[in-house]
Every structure is written in C-alpha cells, then in structure tokens.
C-alpha cells in the first residue's frame, strides 16, 4: 500500500476502535504518517519508542503505599499495597486528555524492544491498562514496526518477533513507498529540483535495498536534498569528491555515482507518461524531444512510461485502444533497436499492455518492419 492508501486504512481502522499496525521498511515515512494523521484530525500525538524502553519502565516502578483498612474485629488497621509510578509518556497523555484533547498514541518500533517490553506494551494495546494506569477514553493507538524475517524480509533488522497471540491484536497494514506520491510530496516540501528530477528519472532508486551497502530510502533523499543545497551555495569551498562522499553515505556507492553525474549532466527531465498520453493524440513536441535524447535516457523513459501504462490499462480497459495506438506511435519515433528491445520487454514484463498490443495490427507490423532493415 502506498502512503495515501495506508493513511486511509489507518483512519478506518482507528474509527472502528481497533489498533492498526503499520509494517514497513525504515525510512519510508511511517512516523510521518502518524504525524500527518494526527494533524489532519487535530489530535495530539504522543510517541512511545519501544526500542528505548527497558523492562518495567512503561509499567512503572512499584512502591508501597499504606492505607487504612478494617480487620475482622472491625478495628482500623494500617494495610500496605503496591502502587506503580506512572511513566512520563502516560502522564503526558493524562495532561492532554484533561484538556479535552484526543490523543493519538503512536507506539513505534514495537518489534525492536525486548520481548518483556512487548508484553507490557501489549497490556496497553489490549487492556488499555497497565499496572493500575488506565488509558483514558479518548486515546487512539497506532503501532508501527519494521518487517522481520518472519514475514519475508531478510535478517537486517534486529527484531524480536511477536508471538501469534500478540500478532492477533493488530490490524496489519503493510506500507510501501510510491514514487508518484513522494514526488508530489517532495515538490511541496521544497526538496531540491535536481533531486526530484533524479527520482522521476530513476523511480526505482527511491527505495532501494543495496546488497552489502547502504539502503536508499525516501528519508535519505531528504537529507541529500539539504546537502545538495549546501553544496551549491558553497561550491567553491566544497570539492566534488566531498559531496560525492556525503551522497554515498546516504544512498550507497552506486546510486551516489549515478546521482552526482546526473546532477552534473544538467539533464532536462525525461519524457514522462503525462507528456505522451495527456492529449488526444501524440503531441508534436514529443517528436523533437525524442530526437534529442540519448539511447539510455529514451530507454529509461519508455520503461517508466510502460510501468504507468500497465497500471492504467488494468484500471481503464475501455480506452485501451487509444493508449496502445499512442504507444505505438511513440515507439515508432524511437531508434529501431530500442523499439524492438522495448517490444520484447512488453512481451516479457507488461502482460496487460502486451495483451492489448497483440490485438493491434500496427504493433505487429511495426515489429516486422524493423527487421526488414537488416535483412534483404
């Protein structure tokens, strides 16, 4: 699920009084989502980080309190009872609710704490009570965690898996980054133009797991954007290699090289899906654009377009004829080897587009036409 879908799901689950659990890789915006949802609804957000808690902390330390009870001879006697100190986060909740506010309690990193801490947190989630402290009515709970090996990802996070009973308490929502939404967000958030263009050229790099290297996450691009801003301002004093190293430290070697040379190359943005399909026919301006692009960039942009087209056709079968025809017209502008390469790609990786393309005679004709060039 992308950000927007997850947000809506969380909203729905919260409104039924259940506890949503967002599962997603680090850096894709789980905390941002909690903030967003609190802000939208004018709730106060209180965050508990599971990984910071030690056993017994959220439950509070016990002390003895004496009280006056009655014994069997009806005489007053002093009795003792254990009471537990209240964790400061829980106290914060009390303070907020006493002002009549609704609180969103965001329990982060719920699988990166010790098993015992998990048990305590579970008490909060399940019984809304811990060692005598009761969560007020107006508190909504949202939990989040990283995926663990148990659910398919590799061993990279030091997580403590929950047991089946704990798992059952939550409504599981798995969250993935979506570059379209990230781009929209990035423009609003004032991310550097070059960084935005880079992601729209290489959407796959927004969230990329590099083997034995750093992972690239949406969060890393936020950081890159600010160092790029600095680098531009102080270009005279910051050498390229320093900037490259900083970028490497954010997204790993490979993407760093790619990004820095992208920034230097001063590319215009790629031909995008909207450029090709926004009008009733293929816009004339595309023709010139294709002529002036390099092979590699044309290939990239076609792949990005195909990815979007595959999704569009899946939703909108009615108009498929228009899409395919425009696509063929577009591909016919391409150098012949790229065209064939992309047609083969369509066959292998874009089943929906391929299914509709096969019904189109121009597509088939264009394929065979290409080979006539090298065969007599």
């Amino acid at each position, binding site marked *: 699920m992308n950000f927007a879908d997850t947000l809506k799901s969380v909203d729905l689950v919260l409104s039924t009084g259940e506890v949503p659990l967002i599962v997603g890789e680090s850096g894709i915006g789980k905390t941002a989502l909690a903030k967003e949802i609190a802000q939208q609804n004018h709730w106060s957000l209180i965050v508990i980080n599971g990984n910071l808690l030690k056993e017994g902390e959220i439950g509070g330390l016990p002390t003895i309190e004496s009280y006056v009870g009655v014994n069997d001879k009806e005489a007053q006697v002093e009795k003792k009872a254990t009471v537990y100190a209240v964790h400061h986060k829980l106290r914060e909740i009390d303070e907020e609710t006493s002002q009549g506010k609704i609180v969103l309690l965001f329990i982060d990193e719920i699988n990166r704490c010790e098993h015992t801490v998990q048990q305590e947190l579970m008490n909060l989630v399940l019984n809304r009570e811990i060692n005598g402290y009761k969560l007020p009515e107006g508190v909504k709970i949202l939990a989040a965690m990283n995926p663990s090996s148990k659910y398919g990802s590799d061993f990279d996070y030091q997580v403590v898996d929950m047991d089946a009973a704990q798992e059952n308490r939550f409504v599981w929502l798995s969250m993935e980054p979506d570059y379209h939404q990230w781009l929209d967000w990035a423009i609003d958030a004032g991310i550097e133009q070059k960084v935005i263009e880079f992601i729209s050229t290489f959407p796959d790099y927004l969230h990329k797991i590099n083997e034995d290297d750093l992972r690239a996450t949406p969060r890393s691009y936020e950081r890159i954007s600010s160092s790029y801003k600095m680098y531009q301002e102080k270009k005279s004093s910051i050498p390229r290699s320093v900037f490259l190293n900083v970028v490497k430290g954010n997204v790993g070697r490979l993407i760093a090289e790619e990004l*820095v040379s992208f920034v230097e190359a001063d590319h215009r943005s790629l031909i995008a899906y909207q450029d090709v399909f926004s009008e009733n026919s293929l816009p004339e301006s595309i023709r010139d654009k294709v002529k002036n692009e390099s092979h590699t960039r044309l290939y990239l942009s076609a792949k990005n377009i195909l990815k979007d087209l595959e999704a569009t056709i899946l939703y909108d079968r009615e108009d498929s004829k228009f899409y395919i025809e425009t696509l063929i017209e577009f591909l016919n502008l391409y150098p*012949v080897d790229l065209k064939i390469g992309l047609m083969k790609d369509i066959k292998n990786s874009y089943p929906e587009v391929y299914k509709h393309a096969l019904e189109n005679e121009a597509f088939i004709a264009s394929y065979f036409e290409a080979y006539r060039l090298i065969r007599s």
Partner: protein
Amino acid sequence: METFFDNQVQELIEKTDIIFKTYLKAKRNDAQAKVTIPKSFTKEFFSLVDQVSLSLMEDKDNFYGYFLMQMSREIRFDISSPTAVNFKGAKYVLHFNPIIFLNLNLKQMESTIKHEILHIVSLHLIRAKEFQADYSTLAINMAMNVVVNTYLDHLPPYAVTLEWVNLKYSLKLLPFKPFEYYLEGIQTALDLLEADEDAADERDTDDSDDTDDSKDKTGTANGGTPDRDQDETIETEYHPEKAHDLWEDSSDIDEKTLQKFTEKFISHAQKGSIPNYLESMISSLKNSRGELPWNLYLKKLMGTVESHKKKTITRRNRRQPDRLDLRGQLRSHKANIVVALDISGSISDQEFHQAIKEVLDIVKNYNHELTIVECDSEIRRVYNVKSAKDINDRINIRGGTRFTPVFEYANHHKVNLLVYFTDGKGEDKLLTIPKGYKTLWVISGRGDKLSLKEAYGAVKKLKNIVANDDSLNINDVKRDGFSMNDQEGMHV
C-alpha cells in the same frame, strides 16, 4: 544481393572519406586543426549502429543488445580499433572509430560490439590495472583479447585470437584458460623476442626485424617512423597494443563501485536465456563478491539472543526500590545454541570443522552453551561442545534427510538459536513449527537451496570452497573446432 544495410554502409564510408580528407587539408594549413564531424554524419552513423544493435536483439544475443542499450555511444577517430569502451558519468561509453568500423560486415560489427561487452563482463577494465606494473601493455591487451575472442565468431581478420598468438609467437597455449594464463605465456614470448631483438640491434640497428610488431610500435609512440604515425588524431587501422588505451580515460571511480555498476548493467541485460559461456562468466563475477557471509548473520543474531538474568547495581530492585542494598536485575544473554549437522549431506568434515570453529569464535564473548545435534532422517547423536577440540568425528550413517526431528528437539530444549548445516535437500514442509528461537540455515557449497517452502529463518550459503574436479566431462570434448558451438550443451 545488396541490402539496405550494405548501401548505408557504402554511403557512410564515402562520407567518412570526406571527413578524413577535409581534416588532412585543414591540417596542412593549421597543425592544431581538429576533426569536425557533421551532425548529419553522427546521426546516420548511429542509425547504422542501431541496426547492428537490433541484430543483437535476437535470441541468445539479446544480452548484448540490452547491454548496449544502457551504454552511451560516441564517435572518436583517434582510437585504433573499431570500437572501444570506457566508463564515464556512471555509464559505460562505447566509442566507435567509423574508419575502421565501417570496413566490417554486419556480423563482424556485431562481434566487435560483443567483444567490448565481454571485456566489461569479464571485468577486464579492473583486472588490467593489477598487472600494469609487471607486464607490458601489449601482452596485457593481447591476453585479454585472446580470452574474449575465443568466445566469438565472425572476427575481423586482424583480431588477436589464440591461433594467431600461438602461430606468431610459436606458443602452445590452450583454449578456455583464464586471462592470467595467457598473459604469462605471451609476456614470456615477448621477453624472449626482445632479448633476440637486442642482440640483433647490436649487430645492425637499421635492419630491424619486421616480425616484431611490438618493438616497432613502441618505437613509433616515442616519435619514431613518421609514415606509420603520421597522424595522432585519426587512426585508420588496428593496433593491438593501443586497443585498450581508452580504459585509462575512464572517470575516477573505485573498483568496487565499478564492479557494482557492471553487475547492475548485467542484471538489466539478462533477459531470457543467454549463452552458456556468458552464464558462467556472469556467475563467476557474482561469486567473486560473495554474499553476506552466514557468520555475519550469526553475529547479528547473537545480539538478540537472551536468557538468564544477572544482578546489577545500575538498577534498583523492582520489588523494593527504596532498599538500595538490594541489587536489581538485568537480562543477560546466555545463549543456548544448537548446531544441527545434516550428516547425510555432502558437507565435508573440513567444511564443518571450519564452520564450527567460526561459530565458537563468534559466540565466545557470550555466555553460551553449544550443542551439536547430528541428524539425518532422525537424530543420531547429541553432545555439548566447549571448544573446537570437543568436536567428535562424525558417525557414518548416511540416510535420507529430514529436518523435522531437529526442530522437535529444539522446541523441547529451550533453544535460543538453531544453526542448521545442511545441503538443503530434505522435506518441503516442517511438521513442527519452530517456537521461541531463531533459525539460521547454512547451506553447504554444493547444495543450492533449501527444499523447505517456508524456512522460518535466514538461509545463507556456506562460502564456496570449489572442489576441483579434473575428470573429463563429455561437454569438455571438443566437437567442432574453436567455435561457439562447443560452448553449447550437447543435445544427445
């Protein structure tokens, strides 16, 4: 019959000629003149290259086609081979010298592009650097070309092939050997020739031996015979020792990153089936890096393994927080580790001993208990180990493999961590689901993957210790000369 393609080549040759002549004319007036390449020429030339690339899109060659698509292309008249590569701006760049390139036919054009891509895939750009100090450039270049050209058909007539090298330097080098092997052979031959040459030079300096090309050309590079090297910015013929000069011109990038880029290019180009020789090249490239070793995972896991409590003064007693004389408790990490060994599998004793030593090294900092469980279709023996010398020799009952008994054992023995050494061939579903501990599968080098559909843990491969098998295989038998045919599997 003339094809459209041939006509186009003809036209381009004429145009190249014009460019060449205009340049020479300009040069006479102005020594600093540069080659001017008209835009229309570039466009036409590359549209021709597109067609070559299209022809590479077919069947098993499509690896090269897709690889080429990711490369930038440039025209350069100053390279002494039809094509050359280097790495610039996060991309491999393929350079063409139209003068030499256009004299090839379609198949040869394909081959020269394949040739460059094979250099990349075999990481020659990186490997050449290692040898530069000790070997001559000519030897390095020829050795690399021999390696690559062995896999190619339709080579241009001047290509450096194994036969050519063997003939020219009276060598008896064998086909399909690594680059280093050829390098050694060729360098020795060159050294011998040079010694002869020196002796000859002492007798008569002018009567230089024309068989030794290398001598001749190193001479020209230092400003020697003018007729050969009349022009440095335009090369019209093939020079083996300059063929890879452009590699020097790559952008400054560390080897590891370059290798990563190469891997990325390769993975994007790998679609459908590829020729066997390419497949083995690619797999050797990937093996050279190796994946995150299993012992690193074990280290990571150890941090999360937990068990008993230990007394501490950093915390108060939870029950009596006001009594400072009572000590609090902290969780300590005593690991109860079970190492399961699949004795039916093909893990050699050495491999296992080595692995256990590593396990012991990793866990020695923790308070641990290490139990070895030997198991095939049922548990055969269980014993505790304190150090490497406690490891018993394996008993030799070799039946089928079942994983379930080990998990049953682990479920009943309060295990924190289970490391399972196996060749991976067992049942496809566990009858007992592991409870309360983590599992790390270590698959022996010979096995490929775990037969279980759900592994309940990380699956890692033991580092490949290649067992050398020198026995002759039917596929090794040459059937059809040194051509591509003997690279393909036999269809019998």
